[in-house]
Protein backbone atom coordinates (compact mmCIF):
# COMPACT_ATOMS: atom_id res chain seq x y z
CA UNK A 1 0.00 0.00 0.00
CA UNK A 2 1.26 3.45 -0.89
CA UNK A 3 0.95 5.82 2.07
CA UNK A 4 3.41 8.50 3.18
CA UNK A 5 3.60 7.05 6.71
CA UNK A 6 4.15 3.43 5.68
CA UNK A 7 7.58 1.90 5.17
CA UNK A 8 8.62 -1.42 3.67
CA UNK A 9 8.31 -3.15 7.05
CA UNK A 10 4.75 -1.92 7.57
CA UNK A 11 3.79 -3.27 4.16
CA UNK A 12 5.33 -6.65 4.91
CA UNK A 13 3.44 -6.79 8.22
CA UNK A 14 0.19 -6.03 6.41
CA UNK A 15 0.86 -8.69 3.77
CA UNK A 16 1.77 -11.33 6.37
CA UNK A 17 -1.15 -10.66 8.72
CA UNK A 18 -3.53 -10.57 5.75
CA UNK A 19 -2.25 -13.95 4.52
CA UNK A 20 -2.57 -15.34 8.04
CA UNK A 21 -6.11 -13.99 8.53
CA UNK A 22 -7.26 -15.29 5.16
CA UNK A 23 -5.67 -18.69 5.67
CA UNK A 24 -6.39 -19.37 9.34
CA UNK A 25 -9.26 -17.17 10.57
CA UNK A 26 -11.53 -16.70 7.58
CA UNK A 27 -12.44 -20.38 7.13
CA UNK A 28 -13.54 -20.67 10.79
CA UNK A 29 -15.00 -17.24 11.56
CA UNK A 30 -18.60 -17.93 10.59
CA UNK A 31 -18.85 -21.17 12.53
CA UNK A 32 -17.18 -19.83 15.68
CA UNK A 33 -19.57 -16.86 15.58
CA UNK A 34 -22.59 -19.13 15.20
CA UNK A 35 -21.47 -21.36 18.07
CA UNK A 36 -20.34 -18.42 20.26
CA UNK A 37 -17.07 -20.26 20.59
CA UNK A 38 -13.81 -18.70 21.70
CA UNK A 39 -10.95 -20.55 19.97
CA UNK A 40 -7.90 -21.29 22.09
CA UNK A 41 -6.23 -22.86 19.07
CA UNK A 42 -6.59 -19.76 16.90
CA UNK A 43 -5.47 -17.53 19.76
CA UNK A 44 -2.31 -19.60 20.08
CA UNK A 45 -1.77 -19.39 16.33
CA UNK A 46 -2.19 -15.62 16.50
CA UNK A 47 0.42 -15.71 19.25
CA UNK A 48 2.80 -17.79 17.15
CA UNK A 49 2.77 -15.27 14.34
CA UNK A 50 3.49 -12.52 16.86
CA UNK A 51 0.20 -10.66 17.21
CA UNK A 52 0.45 -10.22 20.99
CA UNK A 53 2.93 -7.92 22.68
CA UNK A 54 3.55 -6.20 19.38
CA UNK A 55 4.83 -2.98 20.97
CA UNK A 56 6.35 -4.67 24.05
CA UNK A 57 10.14 -4.80 24.02
CA UNK A 58 11.88 -8.05 23.21
CA UNK A 59 13.31 -8.51 26.72
CA UNK A 60 9.77 -9.38 27.91
CA UNK A 61 9.01 -11.57 24.92
CA UNK A 62 7.36 -8.84 22.85
CA UNK A 63 7.95 -8.01 19.21
CA UNK A 64 9.40 -4.53 19.74
CA UNK A 65 7.44 -2.93 16.88
CA UNK A 66 6.00 0.57 16.62
CA UNK A 67 2.35 1.42 17.23
CA UNK A 68 1.57 1.80 13.55
CA UNK A 69 2.69 -1.80 12.94
CA UNK A 70 0.35 -3.02 15.65
CA UNK A 71 -2.54 -0.97 14.28
CA UNK A 72 -1.99 -2.40 10.79
CA UNK A 73 -2.12 -5.91 12.25
CA UNK A 74 -5.43 -5.24 14.06
CA UNK A 75 -6.80 -3.63 10.90
CA UNK A 76 -5.96 -6.73 8.85
CA UNK A 77 -7.55 -9.15 11.33
CA UNK A 78 -10.67 -6.95 11.51
CA UNK A 79 -10.85 -6.98 7.71
CA UNK A 80 -11.66 -10.68 8.06
CA UNK A 81 -13.29 -11.05 11.49
CA UNK A 82 -14.31 -8.76 14.36
CA UNK A 83 -14.15 -11.32 17.17
CA UNK A 84 -10.54 -12.23 16.54
CA UNK A 85 -9.58 -8.61 16.07
CA UNK A 86 -11.16 -8.04 19.50
CA UNK A 87 -9.09 -10.80 21.09
CA UNK A 88 -5.91 -9.29 19.65
CA UNK A 89 -6.79 -5.64 20.28
CA UNK A 90 -7.94 -6.20 23.87
CA UNK A 91 -5.04 -8.59 24.46
CA UNK A 92 -2.54 -5.91 23.51
CA UNK A 93 -4.04 -2.62 24.54
CA UNK A 94 -6.12 -3.61 27.58
CA UNK A 95 -4.35 -6.75 28.78
CA UNK A 96 -0.66 -6.17 28.10
CA UNK A 97 -0.31 -2.40 28.04
CA UNK A 98 -1.16 -1.56 31.70
CA UNK A 99 1.30 -4.20 32.93
CA UNK A 100 3.98 -3.14 30.44
CA UNK A 101 3.70 0.58 31.07
CA UNK A 102 2.90 0.58 34.81
CA UNK A 103 4.00 -2.79 36.21
CA UNK A 104 7.18 -3.22 38.26
CA UNK A 105 10.02 -5.42 37.05
CA UNK A 106 8.79 -8.45 38.95
CA UNK A 107 5.26 -8.17 37.57
CA UNK A 108 6.52 -7.67 34.03
CA UNK A 109 8.81 -10.71 34.22
CA UNK A 110 6.06 -12.81 35.74
CA UNK A 111 3.24 -12.06 33.32
CA UNK A 112 4.48 -10.53 30.07
CA UNK A 113 6.26 -13.48 28.42
CA UNK A 114 3.19 -15.74 28.46
CA UNK A 115 0.90 -12.89 27.41
CA UNK A 116 3.23 -11.84 24.59
CA UNK A 117 3.37 -15.37 23.21
CA UNK A 118 -0.44 -15.60 23.16
CA UNK A 119 -0.33 -18.65 25.44
CA UNK A 120 -2.33 -16.72 28.05
CA UNK A 121 -4.73 -13.78 28.14
CA UNK A 122 -5.38 -10.94 30.58
CA UNK A 123 -8.37 -8.65 31.19
CA UNK A 124 -8.73 -4.99 32.05
CA UNK A 125 -11.63 -4.50 34.48
CA UNK A 126 -12.94 -0.97 34.49
CA UNK A 127 -16.65 -1.06 33.56
CA UNK A 128 -19.22 -1.84 36.26
CA UNK A 129 -23.00 -2.08 36.19
CA UNK A 130 -23.21 1.47 37.56
CA UNK A 131 -20.00 2.79 36.04
CA UNK A 132 -19.94 2.75 32.22
CA UNK A 133 -19.23 6.10 30.60
CA UNK A 134 -19.10 7.49 34.12
CA UNK A 135 -16.18 5.29 35.10
CA UNK A 136 -15.44 7.37 38.21
CA UNK A 137 -18.66 6.03 39.68
CA UNK A 138 -16.92 2.71 40.41
CA UNK A 139 -18.30 0.83 43.39
CA UNK A 140 -15.66 -1.89 43.56
CA UNK A 141 -13.61 -1.20 46.68
CA UNK A 142 -10.16 -2.28 47.77
CA UNK A 143 -9.17 -1.92 51.42
CA UNK A 144 -5.63 -2.48 52.62
CA UNK A 145 -5.89 -4.76 55.67
CA UNK A 146 -2.87 -6.46 57.25
CA UNK A 147 -0.76 -6.32 54.10
CA UNK A 148 -3.54 -7.53 51.81
CA UNK A 149 -5.95 -5.78 49.51
CA UNK A 150 -9.47 -6.93 50.27
CA UNK A 151 -11.66 -6.40 47.20
CA UNK A 152 -15.45 -6.31 47.03
CA UNK A 153 -17.65 -5.48 44.07
CA UNK A 154 -18.14 -6.51 40.45
CA UNK A 155 -17.17 -5.71 36.87
CA UNK A 156 -19.06 -6.28 33.64
CA UNK A 157 -18.21 -6.74 29.92
CA UNK A 158 -14.54 -7.56 30.52
CA UNK A 159 -12.86 -8.89 27.36
CA UNK A 160 -10.47 -11.88 27.56
CA UNK A 161 -11.06 -12.31 31.32
CA UNK A 162 -12.72 -15.73 31.59
CA UNK A 163 -11.47 -17.91 28.73
CA UNK A 164 -9.69 -21.21 29.37
CA UNK A 165 -6.39 -19.39 28.94
CA UNK A 166 -7.21 -16.22 30.91
CA UNK A 167 -4.93 -15.93 33.91
CA UNK A 168 -5.98 -12.65 35.52
CA UNK A 169 -7.14 -9.06 35.20
CA UNK A 170 -6.06 -5.55 36.15
CA UNK A 171 -8.93 -4.21 38.23
CA UNK A 172 -9.85 -0.60 38.75
CA UNK A 173 -10.85 -0.14 42.40
CA UNK A 174 -11.85 2.65 44.76
CA UNK A 175 -9.26 2.65 47.53
CA UNK A 176 -10.16 5.72 49.57
CA UNK A 177 -7.41 6.73 51.97
CA UNK A 178 -7.82 7.06 55.77
CA UNK A 179 -9.27 10.56 55.38
CA UNK A 180 -11.90 9.28 53.00
CA UNK A 181 -10.42 11.12 49.98
CA UNK A 182 -11.58 9.39 46.79
CA UNK A 183 -8.76 7.69 44.95
CA UNK A 184 -8.52 4.90 42.43
CA UNK A 185 -5.99 2.11 42.48
CA UNK A 186 -5.39 -0.62 39.90
CA UNK A 187 -4.86 -4.08 41.37
CA UNK A 188 -3.79 -7.34 39.76
CA UNK A 189 -6.07 -10.27 40.52
CA UNK A 190 -5.17 -13.71 39.22
CA UNK A 191 -7.90 -16.11 38.13
CA UNK A 192 -8.42 -18.77 40.76
CA UNK A 193 -7.90 -16.40 43.70
CA UNK A 194 -10.44 -17.28 46.43
CA UNK A 195 -13.32 -14.81 46.44
CA UNK A 196 -12.90 -14.01 42.74
CA UNK A 197 -15.16 -15.44 40.07
CA UNK A 198 -14.85 -14.73 36.34
CA UNK A 199 -18.03 -15.78 34.53
CA UNK A 200 -18.40 -15.82 30.75
CA UNK A 201 -21.23 -13.69 29.33
CA UNK A 202 -23.26 -15.30 26.53
CA UNK A 203 -25.71 -14.24 23.84
CA UNK A 204 -23.90 -11.20 22.58
CA UNK A 205 -25.14 -9.77 19.28
CA UNK A 206 -21.56 -9.25 18.04
CA UNK A 207 -18.00 -10.45 18.71
CA UNK A 208 -19.56 -13.79 19.52
CA UNK A 209 -16.26 -15.68 19.25
CA UNK A 210 -14.55 -13.26 21.61
CA UNK A 211 -14.52 -13.89 25.35
CA UNK A 212 -16.45 -11.42 27.55
CA UNK A 213 -16.81 -11.80 31.32
CA UNK A 214 -18.49 -10.60 34.46
CA UNK A 215 -16.15 -10.49 37.42
CA UNK A 216 -17.29 -10.86 41.02
CA UNK A 217 -15.20 -10.05 44.09
CA UNK A 218 -16.37 -11.18 47.50
CA UNK A 219 -13.84 -10.47 50.26
CA UNK A 220 -11.22 -11.34 47.66
CA UNK A 221 -7.76 -11.04 49.24
CA UNK A 222 -4.57 -10.40 47.26
CA UNK A 223 -1.12 -9.36 48.56
CA UNK A 224 -0.38 -5.62 48.82
CA UNK A 225 2.35 -6.13 46.20
CA UNK A 226 -0.34 -6.85 43.56
CA UNK A 227 -0.81 -3.11 43.14
CA UNK A 228 -0.15 -1.88 39.58
CA UNK A 229 1.73 1.41 39.68
CA UNK A 230 1.22 3.39 42.90
CA UNK A 231 -1.73 3.82 45.21
CA UNK A 232 -3.98 6.47 43.67
CA UNK A 233 -2.56 5.91 40.14
CA UNK A 234 -5.79 4.22 39.00
CA UNK A 235 -7.14 7.20 37.04
CA UNK A 236 -3.83 7.77 35.30
CA UNK A 237 -3.56 4.11 34.31
CA UNK A 238 -7.14 4.07 33.10
CA UNK A 239 -6.77 7.22 30.99
CA UNK A 240 -3.51 6.14 29.44
CA UNK A 241 -4.88 2.67 28.69
CA UNK A 242 -8.00 4.09 27.08
CA UNK A 243 -6.02 6.56 24.96
CA UNK A 244 -4.12 3.67 23.42
CA UNK A 245 -7.24 1.50 23.31
CA UNK A 246 -8.89 4.12 21.13
CA UNK A 247 -6.29 3.56 18.44
CA UNK A 248 -7.08 -0.18 18.53
CA UNK A 249 -10.82 0.36 18.21
CA UNK A 250 -10.08 2.77 15.36
CA UNK A 251 -8.11 0.00 13.65
CA UNK A 252 -10.99 -2.42 14.15
CA UNK A 253 -13.37 0.08 12.56
CA UNK A 254 -11.07 0.75 9.64
CA UNK A 255 -10.41 -2.96 9.01
CA UNK A 256 -14.07 -3.89 9.27
CA UNK A 257 -14.99 -1.08 6.87
CA UNK A 258 -12.31 -2.23 4.42
CA UNK A 259 -13.56 -5.83 4.55
CA UNK A 260 -17.21 -4.79 4.14
CA UNK A 261 -16.30 -2.47 1.25
CA UNK A 262 -14.42 -5.22 -0.59
CA UNK A 263 -17.38 -7.59 -0.20
CA UNK A 264 -19.81 -4.94 -1.42
CA UNK A 265 -17.67 -4.02 -4.42
CA UNK A 266 -17.25 -7.63 -5.48
CA UNK A 267 -20.94 -8.33 -5.07
CA UNK A 268 -21.90 -5.20 -7.01
CA UNK A 269 -19.58 -6.17 -9.87
CA UNK A 270 -21.11 -9.64 -10.08
CA UNK A 271 -24.79 -9.14 -9.31
CA UNK A 272 -26.71 -8.47 -12.51
CA UNK A 273 -30.11 -6.76 -12.47
CA UNK A 274 -31.74 -4.92 -15.36
CA UNK A 275 -29.19 -6.52 -17.68
CA UNK A 276 -25.99 -5.14 -16.15
CA UNK A 277 -23.91 -5.42 -12.96
CA UNK A 278 -25.51 -3.28 -10.24
CA UNK A 279 -22.22 -1.34 -9.81
CA UNK A 280 -23.04 0.22 -13.18
CA UNK A 281 -26.14 1.80 -11.62
CA UNK A 282 -25.14 5.25 -10.49
CA UNK A 283 -26.96 4.93 -7.17
CA UNK A 284 -24.81 1.91 -6.26
CA UNK A 285 -21.60 3.29 -7.80
CA UNK A 286 -21.92 6.46 -5.73
CA UNK A 287 -22.46 4.45 -2.55
CA UNK A 288 -19.22 2.59 -3.28
CA UNK A 289 -17.44 5.86 -4.04
CA UNK A 290 -18.53 7.30 -0.69
CA UNK A 291 -17.42 4.14 1.10
CA UNK A 292 -13.97 4.29 -0.54
CA UNK A 293 -13.64 7.99 0.30
CA UNK A 294 -14.52 7.57 3.96
CA UNK A 295 -12.17 4.61 4.35
CA UNK A 296 -9.34 6.66 2.86
CA UNK A 297 -10.00 9.51 5.29
CA UNK A 298 -10.34 7.15 8.25
CA UNK A 299 -7.01 5.55 7.39
CA UNK A 300 -5.22 8.89 7.09
CA UNK A 301 -6.56 10.07 10.45
CA UNK A 302 -5.75 6.85 12.29
CA UNK A 303 -2.25 6.54 10.84
CA UNK A 304 -1.56 10.15 11.72
CA UNK A 305 -2.59 9.50 15.33
CA UNK A 306 -0.23 6.49 15.39
CA UNK A 307 2.55 8.58 13.89
CA UNK A 308 2.10 11.15 16.66
CA UNK A 309 2.27 8.39 19.29
CA UNK A 310 5.32 6.75 17.68
CA UNK A 311 7.08 10.11 17.55
CA UNK A 312 6.36 10.88 21.21
CA UNK A 313 4.05 13.78 20.45
CA UNK A 314 0.64 14.39 22.05
CA UNK A 315 -1.79 12.06 20.29
CA UNK A 316 -4.78 11.88 22.66
CA UNK A 317 -7.09 14.20 20.73
CA UNK A 318 -6.32 12.46 17.43
CA UNK A 319 -6.80 9.07 19.12
CA UNK A 320 -10.32 10.09 20.21
CA UNK A 321 -11.01 11.46 16.71
CA UNK A 322 -9.77 8.24 15.12
CA UNK A 323 -11.87 6.07 17.42
CA UNK A 324 -14.95 8.13 16.71
CA UNK A 325 -14.47 8.50 12.97
CA UNK A 326 -13.30 4.96 12.17
CA UNK A 327 -16.09 3.35 14.19
CA UNK A 328 -18.72 5.56 12.55
CA UNK A 329 -17.26 4.85 9.11
CA UNK A 330 -17.50 1.13 9.93
CA UNK A 331 -21.18 1.61 10.73
CA UNK A 332 -21.85 3.54 7.52
CA UNK A 333 -19.91 1.16 5.29
CA UNK A 334 -21.35 -2.04 6.82
CA UNK A 335 -24.86 -0.62 6.49
CA UNK A 336 -24.40 0.38 2.85
CA UNK A 337 -22.70 -2.95 2.13
CA UNK A 338 -25.77 -4.80 3.42
CA UNK A 339 -27.95 -2.52 1.27
CA UNK A 340 -25.88 -3.41 -1.79
CA UNK A 341 -26.28 -7.12 -1.00
CA UNK A 342 -30.06 -6.74 -0.92
CA UNK A 343 -31.88 -9.64 0.75
CA UNK A 344 -28.79 -11.84 0.61
CA UNK A 345 -27.01 -9.42 2.97
CA UNK A 346 -29.48 -10.38 5.66
CA UNK A 347 -28.68 -14.07 5.42
CA UNK A 348 -26.05 -15.70 7.60
CA UNK A 349 -24.55 -17.38 4.53
CA UNK A 350 -23.00 -14.02 3.67
CA UNK A 351 -20.17 -12.67 5.83
CA UNK A 352 -21.53 -9.15 5.53
CA UNK A 353 -24.31 -10.16 7.94
CA UNK A 354 -21.68 -10.80 10.65
CA UNK A 355 -19.81 -7.61 9.82
CA UNK A 356 -23.04 -5.63 10.18
CA UNK A 357 -23.47 -7.00 13.72
CA UNK A 358 -19.80 -6.76 14.68
CA UNK A 359 -19.48 -3.06 13.83
CA UNK A 360 -22.11 -2.09 16.38
CA UNK A 361 -19.86 -2.48 19.40
CA UNK A 362 -17.30 -0.09 17.96
CA UNK A 363 -19.37 3.03 18.65
CA UNK A 364 -19.94 1.86 22.25
CA UNK A 365 -16.88 0.06 23.67
CA UNK A 366 -13.93 1.93 25.19
CA UNK A 367 -15.89 5.17 25.28
CA UNK A 368 -19.09 5.72 23.30
CA UNK A 369 -19.26 8.07 20.33
CA UNK A 370 -20.91 10.64 22.61
CA UNK A 371 -18.04 10.40 25.08
CA UNK A 372 -15.46 10.73 22.26
CA UNK A 373 -17.15 13.95 21.18
CA UNK A 374 -16.98 15.11 24.80
CA UNK A 375 -13.26 14.30 24.92
CA UNK A 376 -12.55 16.05 21.59
CA UNK A 377 -14.58 19.11 22.60
CA UNK A 378 -12.48 19.44 25.75
CA UNK A 379 -9.23 19.25 23.75
CA UNK A 380 -10.36 21.98 21.38
CA UNK A 381 -11.22 24.28 24.28
CA UNK A 382 -15.00 24.08 24.66
Amino acid sequence: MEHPLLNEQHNLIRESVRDFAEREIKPLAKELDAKQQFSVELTHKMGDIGLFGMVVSEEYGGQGLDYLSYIIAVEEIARVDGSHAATVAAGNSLGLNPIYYFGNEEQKKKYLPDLCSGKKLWGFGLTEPEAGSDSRNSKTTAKLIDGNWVINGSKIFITNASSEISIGSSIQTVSNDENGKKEFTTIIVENGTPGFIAKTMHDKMMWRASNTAELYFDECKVPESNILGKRGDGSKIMLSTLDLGRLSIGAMGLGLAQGAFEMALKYAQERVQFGKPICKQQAIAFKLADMALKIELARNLLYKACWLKDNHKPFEKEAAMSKLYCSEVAKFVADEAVQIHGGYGLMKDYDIERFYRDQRLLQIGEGTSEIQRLVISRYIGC
Partner: protein
Amino acid sequence: MKILVCISNVPDTTTKIKFLNNNTTFDSAGVQWIINPWDELALTRAIELKEAHAGAIENITVVNIGPPTTEPTIRKALAIGADNAIRINLDPKDAYSVALQLSEIIKKDSFDIILCGIESSDYNGTSVGGMLSELLDYPSVSAVSFIDIDGDQLKLKREIDGGQEIIGISTPFIGIVQKGIAKDARIPNMRGIMMAKTKPLQVVEPVSTDLYTDFVSFDYPKAKAACKKVDPENVKELVNLLHNEAKVI
Protein backbone atom coordinates in the same frame (compact mmCIF):
# COMPACT_ATOMS: atom_id res chain seq x y z
CA MET B 1 25.42 -28.22 4.13
CA LYS B 2 24.50 -24.93 2.55
CA ILE B 3 21.30 -24.34 0.62
CA LEU B 4 20.80 -21.75 -2.07
CA VAL B 5 17.22 -20.88 -3.01
CA CYS B 6 16.80 -18.91 -6.22
CA ILE B 7 13.85 -16.55 -5.98
CA SER B 8 12.31 -14.46 -8.66
CA ASN B 9 10.21 -11.37 -8.13
CA VAL B 10 6.90 -11.71 -9.98
CA PRO B 11 3.60 -9.81 -10.14
CA ASP B 12 0.98 -11.01 -7.67
CA THR B 13 -0.98 -13.81 -9.29
CA THR B 14 -4.17 -11.72 -9.25
CA THR B 15 -2.58 -8.83 -11.19
CA LYS B 16 -4.40 -7.59 -14.29
CA ILE B 17 -1.64 -7.78 -16.89
CA LYS B 18 -1.24 -4.77 -19.19
CA PHE B 19 1.36 -3.83 -21.81
CA LEU B 20 2.72 -0.54 -23.09
CA ASN B 21 4.48 0.65 -26.26
CA ASN B 22 2.57 -1.43 -28.80
CA ASN B 23 2.48 -4.45 -26.54
CA THR B 24 6.27 -4.66 -26.22
CA THR B 25 6.71 -3.69 -22.55
CA PHE B 26 5.00 -4.98 -19.43
CA ASP B 27 3.25 -2.16 -17.55
CA SER B 28 4.39 -2.48 -13.94
CA ALA B 29 2.42 0.53 -12.64
CA GLY B 30 0.54 -0.32 -9.46
CA VAL B 31 1.68 -3.95 -9.51
CA GLN B 32 2.08 -5.79 -6.21
CA TRP B 33 5.23 -7.94 -6.34
CA ILE B 34 5.62 -11.29 -4.66
CA ILE B 35 8.09 -14.16 -4.40
CA ASN B 36 7.40 -16.59 -7.25
CA PRO B 37 5.07 -19.14 -5.57
CA TRP B 38 7.24 -22.19 -6.43
CA ASP B 39 10.34 -20.46 -5.07
CA GLU B 40 8.48 -19.54 -1.88
CA LEU B 41 7.56 -23.19 -1.37
CA ALA B 42 11.19 -24.20 -2.02
CA LEU B 43 12.32 -21.72 0.62
CA THR B 44 9.70 -23.01 3.05
CA ARG B 45 10.96 -26.58 2.57
CA ALA B 46 14.57 -25.45 2.99
CA ILE B 47 13.65 -23.89 6.35
CA GLU B 48 11.75 -27.02 7.39
CA LEU B 49 14.87 -29.10 6.60
CA LYS B 50 17.03 -26.76 8.64
CA GLU B 51 14.63 -27.01 11.58
CA ALA B 52 14.25 -30.79 11.35
CA HIS B 53 17.96 -31.58 10.95
CA ALA B 54 19.61 -29.29 13.45
CA GLY B 55 23.25 -28.97 12.54
CA ALA B 56 23.04 -30.66 9.14
CA ILE B 57 22.02 -27.47 7.34
CA GLU B 58 24.18 -24.57 8.41
CA ASN B 59 22.87 -21.83 6.19
CA ILE B 60 20.13 -20.87 3.75
CA THR B 61 20.91 -18.16 1.21
CA VAL B 62 18.40 -16.67 -1.20
CA VAL B 63 19.50 -15.13 -4.47
CA ASN B 64 17.58 -12.85 -6.78
CA ILE B 65 18.55 -11.18 -10.01
CA GLY B 66 16.86 -7.84 -10.14
CA PRO B 67 17.12 -4.07 -9.79
CA PRO B 68 16.96 -2.40 -6.34
CA THR B 69 13.13 -2.41 -6.52
CA THR B 70 13.10 -6.16 -5.84
CA GLU B 71 14.56 -5.71 -2.36
CA PRO B 72 11.17 -5.79 -0.54
CA THR B 73 10.63 -9.26 -2.02
CA ILE B 74 14.10 -10.33 -0.88
CA ARG B 75 13.44 -8.94 2.63
CA LYS B 76 10.32 -11.04 2.77
CA ALA B 77 12.40 -14.15 2.03
CA LEU B 78 14.68 -13.14 4.90
CA ALA B 79 11.62 -12.58 7.15
CA ILE B 80 10.34 -16.05 6.27
CA GLY B 81 13.65 -17.46 7.52
CA ALA B 82 16.53 -17.31 5.02
CA ASP B 83 19.80 -16.40 6.74
CA ASN B 84 21.23 -14.09 4.13
CA ALA B 85 20.55 -12.84 0.64
CA ILE B 86 22.33 -11.90 -2.55
CA ARG B 87 20.90 -9.56 -5.17
CA ILE B 88 22.58 -9.53 -8.55
CA ASN B 89 22.04 -6.03 -9.77
CA LEU B 90 20.54 -6.63 -13.20
CA ASP B 91 17.07 -6.44 -14.72
CA PRO B 92 17.20 -9.86 -16.39
CA LYS B 93 16.03 -10.17 -19.96
CA ASP B 94 15.75 -13.90 -20.50
CA ALA B 95 16.26 -17.32 -18.91
CA TYR B 96 19.80 -17.68 -20.18
CA SER B 97 20.99 -14.44 -18.61
CA VAL B 98 19.38 -15.49 -15.31
CA ALA B 99 21.04 -18.92 -15.40
CA LEU B 100 24.41 -17.45 -16.32
CA GLN B 101 24.36 -14.89 -13.49
CA LEU B 102 23.30 -17.58 -11.02
CA SER B 103 26.05 -19.92 -12.17
CA GLU B 104 28.68 -17.24 -11.51
CA ILE B 105 27.44 -16.82 -7.92
CA ILE B 106 27.43 -20.57 -7.35
CA LYS B 107 30.96 -20.91 -8.75
CA LYS B 108 32.20 -18.33 -6.24
CA ASP B 109 30.59 -19.90 -3.19
CA SER B 110 30.06 -23.60 -2.61
CA PHE B 111 26.41 -24.49 -2.16
CA ASP B 112 25.38 -28.09 -1.64
CA ILE B 113 21.71 -27.91 -2.47
CA ILE B 114 20.48 -25.45 -5.05
CA LEU B 115 16.72 -25.11 -5.29
CA CYS B 116 14.75 -23.29 -7.91
CA GLY B 117 11.11 -23.31 -8.88
CA ILE B 118 9.98 -25.31 -11.88
CA GLU B 119 8.89 -22.06 -13.51
CA SER B 120 8.18 -18.47 -12.64
CA SER B 121 4.59 -17.37 -12.68
CA ASP B 122 5.30 -14.37 -14.94
CA TYR B 123 6.98 -15.72 -18.10
CA ASN B 124 6.56 -19.45 -17.32
CA GLY B 125 9.85 -20.22 -19.07
CA THR B 126 10.69 -23.48 -17.20
CA SER B 127 14.27 -23.14 -18.45
CA VAL B 128 16.48 -21.68 -15.71
CA GLY B 129 17.00 -24.85 -13.65
CA GLY B 130 18.06 -26.95 -16.63
CA MET B 131 20.34 -24.26 -18.06
CA LEU B 132 21.94 -23.74 -14.67
CA SER B 133 22.68 -27.44 -14.40
CA GLU B 134 24.34 -27.39 -17.81
CA LEU B 135 26.40 -24.27 -17.09
CA LEU B 136 27.67 -25.70 -13.78
CA ASP B 137 27.86 -29.30 -14.91
CA TYR B 138 25.86 -30.28 -11.81
CA PRO B 139 23.25 -33.03 -11.79
CA SER B 140 19.69 -31.80 -11.64
CA VAL B 141 16.34 -33.35 -10.86
CA SER B 142 13.22 -31.73 -12.21
CA ALA B 143 9.64 -31.65 -10.93
CA VAL B 144 10.72 -32.48 -7.37
CA SER B 145 7.76 -32.72 -5.00
CA PHE B 146 9.60 -33.99 -1.90
CA ILE B 147 13.06 -33.56 -0.47
CA ASP B 148 14.63 -34.82 2.74
CA ILE B 149 18.03 -35.62 4.16
CA ASP B 150 18.81 -39.33 4.18
CA GLY B 151 22.23 -40.00 5.72
CA ASP B 152 24.91 -38.48 3.46
CA GLN B 153 22.48 -38.28 0.62
CA LEU B 154 19.30 -36.46 -0.22
CA LYS B 155 16.12 -38.33 -0.93
CA LEU B 156 13.91 -36.78 -3.58
CA LYS B 157 10.56 -37.69 -5.05
CA ARG B 158 9.15 -36.63 -8.36
CA GLU B 159 5.71 -37.20 -9.72
CA ILE B 160 5.65 -39.26 -12.91
CA ASP B 161 2.74 -40.46 -14.95
CA GLY B 162 0.75 -42.81 -12.74
CA GLY B 163 3.19 -42.86 -9.81
CA GLN B 164 6.27 -41.49 -8.14
CA GLU B 165 9.96 -41.79 -8.74
CA ILE B 166 12.20 -41.90 -5.68
CA ILE B 167 15.72 -40.69 -6.18
CA GLY B 168 18.82 -40.67 -3.99
CA ILE B 169 21.32 -37.98 -4.91
CA SER B 170 24.62 -36.67 -3.58
CA THR B 171 25.48 -33.02 -3.29
CA PRO B 172 25.96 -30.71 -5.02
CA PHE B 173 22.88 -30.84 -7.16
CA ILE B 174 20.06 -28.70 -8.46
CA GLY B 175 16.51 -29.45 -7.38
CA ILE B 176 13.87 -27.99 -9.66
CA VAL B 177 10.81 -28.03 -7.45
CA GLN B 178 7.11 -28.11 -8.10
CA LYS B 179 4.05 -27.66 -5.91
CA GLY B 180 3.87 -30.17 -3.08
CA ILE B 181 7.47 -29.59 -2.01
CA ALA B 182 5.97 -27.83 1.03
CA LYS B 183 2.33 -27.82 2.05
CA ASP B 184 1.86 -24.06 2.32
CA ALA B 185 4.32 -21.23 1.95
CA ARG B 186 5.39 -20.09 5.39
CA ILE B 187 4.02 -16.73 6.54
CA PRO B 188 6.66 -14.58 8.22
CA ASN B 189 6.00 -13.85 11.88
CA MET B 190 6.54 -10.44 13.47
CA ARG B 191 9.89 -11.44 14.98
CA GLY B 192 11.06 -12.66 11.58
CA ILE B 193 10.05 -9.36 10.00
CA MET B 194 12.02 -7.45 12.64
CA MET B 195 15.08 -9.67 12.22
CA ALA B 196 14.98 -9.42 8.42
CA LYS B 197 16.00 -5.77 8.68
CA THR B 198 19.44 -6.67 9.99
CA LYS B 199 20.16 -9.84 8.02
CA PRO B 200 22.87 -9.42 5.35
CA LEU B 201 21.71 -8.55 1.83
CA GLN B 202 24.72 -8.44 -0.44
CA VAL B 203 24.50 -6.65 -3.78
CA VAL B 204 26.71 -8.12 -6.53
CA GLU B 205 27.32 -6.57 -9.91
CA PRO B 206 26.46 -8.86 -12.86
CA VAL B 207 28.94 -10.38 -15.27
CA SER B 208 28.43 -9.30 -18.86
CA THR B 209 26.33 -11.62 -20.99
CA ASP B 210 25.23 -11.89 -24.55
CA LEU B 211 21.51 -11.81 -25.16
CA TYR B 212 20.20 -14.58 -27.33
CA THR B 213 16.56 -13.63 -27.31
CA ASP B 214 14.58 -10.58 -28.27
CA PHE B 215 10.96 -10.08 -27.24
CA VAL B 216 9.07 -8.91 -30.29
CA SER B 217 5.69 -8.32 -28.67
CA PHE B 218 3.13 -9.81 -26.32
CA ASP B 219 -0.38 -10.88 -27.18
CA TYR B 220 -3.31 -11.10 -24.79
CA PRO B 221 -5.15 -14.39 -24.64
CA LYS B 222 -8.37 -14.41 -26.61
CA ALA B 223 -11.31 -13.17 -24.58
CA LYS B 224 -13.38 -16.05 -23.26
CA ALA B 225 -16.51 -16.58 -25.30
CA ALA B 226 -19.77 -15.88 -23.53
CA CYS B 227 -21.37 -18.85 -21.83
CA LYS B 228 -24.43 -20.30 -23.54
CA LYS B 229 -27.06 -22.07 -21.50
CA VAL B 230 -28.95 -24.92 -23.09
CA ASP B 231 -32.10 -26.38 -21.66
CA PRO B 232 -31.28 -29.85 -20.23
CA GLU B 233 -34.19 -31.29 -22.23
CA ASN B 234 -32.88 -29.89 -25.49
CA VAL B 235 -30.07 -32.33 -26.37
CA LYS B 236 -30.54 -31.70 -30.06
CA GLU B 237 -29.63 -28.07 -29.74
CA LEU B 238 -26.62 -28.93 -27.59
CA VAL B 239 -25.27 -31.35 -30.21
CA ASN B 240 -25.95 -28.81 -32.92
CA LEU B 241 -24.02 -26.10 -31.06
CA LEU B 242 -21.10 -28.40 -30.32
CA HIS B 243 -20.95 -29.35 -34.01
CA ASN B 244 -21.50 -26.07 -35.74
CA GLU B 245 -20.54 -23.33 -33.31
CA ALA B 246 -17.90 -24.75 -30.98
CA LYS B 247 -16.77 -27.18 -33.68
CA VAL B 248 -15.51 -29.66 -31.11
CA ILE B 249 -17.40 -32.71 -32.32
